[in-house]
């Protein structure tokens, strides 16, 4: 535990010391929900439209995916921010420490997961206000899904950032990876409406199963069996965690 606890402590302390970042992460989903969600729900108000969304109104459909969206973007960005640690030197401090690197990076991902899920809770509260009729008992499972999802995307970010050396690519990488994964996760439109090639990617995207699972607990509607969601989310997250840990263990300061 020598590596996990101090890194969790660090990520939480950093968050507490820079609370303005909280605003940044929760603004994006709110914008989507309000401007996109309210607008599109009008477009999908024709009779029979709700069949596409498993019987949900479009607003409820979208709202039930917003928590996952907050988590995906937030965790991936926090993972990629290992580049900042590289730039500002703190990475070296962790690389020369005797604590196992796997623990250090798991601690970092876990710390970020806790911080981001706190932000996601704020979004969840707003979602309950905007989209009526969501199940209140969904809160606990949503948080559990959220932490697993967060670990996966933080690891993916870490794996990428260990290989990157420049800060210039930071924002581009974040957008280039998160945007397509968000669209291919069932947050904005169901998998059944996707072109085949897109659906194949969506099946490999861990976010798909977190979104579907969360939607199940919030609305009672889901595309997959909730048990399948859990199993696939866990498996795909484990793969990403493995990638993240491995790339961090191999990290040197070569470039």
């Amino acid at each position: 535990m020598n590596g996990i606890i101090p890194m969790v402590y660090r990520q939480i302390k950093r968050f507490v010391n820079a609370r303005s970042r909280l605003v940044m992460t929760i603004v994006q989903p709110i914008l989507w929900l309000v401007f996109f969600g309210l607008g599109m729900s009008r477009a999908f108000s024709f009779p029979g439209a709700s069949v596409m969304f498993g019987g949900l109104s479009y607003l409820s459909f979208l709202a039930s995916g917003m928590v996952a969206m907050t988590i995906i973007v937030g965790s991936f960005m926090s993972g990629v921010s290992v580049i900042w640690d590289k730039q500002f030197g703190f990475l070296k401090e962790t690389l020369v420490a005797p604590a196992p690197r796997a623990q250090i990076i798991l601690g970092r991902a876990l710390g970020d997961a806790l911080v981001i899920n706190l932000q996601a809770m704020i979004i969840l509260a707003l979602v309950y206000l905007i989209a009526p009729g969501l199940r209140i008992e969904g809160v606990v499972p949503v948080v559990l899904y959220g932490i697993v999802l967060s670990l996966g995307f933080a690891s993916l970010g870490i794996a990428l950032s260990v290989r990157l050396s420049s800060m210039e690519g930071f924002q581009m990488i974040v957008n280039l990876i998160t945007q397509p994964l968000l669209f291919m996760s069932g947050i904005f439109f169901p998998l059944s409406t996707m072109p085949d090639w897109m659906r194949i990617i969506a099946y490999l995207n861990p976010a798909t199963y977190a979104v579907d699972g969360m939607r199940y607990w919030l609305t009672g509607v889901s595309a997959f069996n909730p048990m399948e969601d859990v199993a696939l989310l866990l498996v795909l997250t484990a793969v990403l965690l493995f990638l993240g840990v491995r790339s961090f263990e191999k990290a040197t300061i070569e470039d």
Partner: protein
Amino acid sequence: MSEAIVVENLVKKFKDITAVDQVSFQVKQGEIYGLLGPNGAGKTTTIHILTTLLRPTSGKVFVAGYDVVTSPGEVRKRIGIVFQDPSIDNQLTAYDNMYIHGRLYGLSGEELKRKIYQLLDFVDLKPYANKLVRYFSGGMRRRLEIARSLLHEPDILFLDEPTIGLDPQTRVKIWDYIMAIKKEHGMTIFLTTHYMDEADQLCERIAIMDHGQIKAQGTPEQLKSLLGNEIVYVKLDGNTTSPPCIESDYVESCKQVSRDTLQLVVKNAATAMPRIFEAASSKGLKIIEVSYRRPTLNEVFIYLTGRELRDSLEEGGFRPPHRRW
């Protein structure tokens, strides 16, 4: 075990650039050992290999008795490092930076807390314990890094350019801390620097490094004695296009250091000077200025590498040293 660090034929290549080329040296337990050389000589690369951050291309490196390649974990437990570039988290307080470091090295509880305050006190940062590092000056950050590197009581302390970019008062203060660490803990200290005065003041033994190679090593006195006892600078009339060197039995070496200035290494400047005047006038050369001094590490460096030990950006002609008449 009396050797804290053993380096044998160390080579590090980055693609086609050889940063460290067949370097070998040993550092004894409890000594302050300095790696002196200009920027880009390979000092930082060497320190990164010694601290397990880079893998050597070839060669053997043992730190605190362990191979840095096969047992980096054992090495990491026993060393403390102050990097050339800051490696503290600006968005945390001084205390939190220390606390995280302590936890990463397996310390915890009251003992950790006591040590943190004790070390912050040592570097005069106790009043700033709960301030964000973001607001610290460069000197304060360096002091915090020194305190942090001592937290887990390492056997060997690595300092990469510990006073680079600091003002003169802060430099002296950092030197005091280094001497105090050595005195109080008997720690082995390995430092790199491109300041000759720093190496001269602090180090018991020095290796001079240039272009990835070690040119010479020994105590500062031994290195200076490579040049004989004293150095005489002779400035000749500007009309002489290329002053011939004065060769004689009392001159150990003679070198033209600028267009009109000769550097002569002699055993005894007082007796050599009249003979230098004689030799010059017999060759029809007019001496317009003479100065002499005991060799410095800078001259040792010039002697060994043929160029000055200072940043290449720092342009300027050769400045004759003090004590002129």
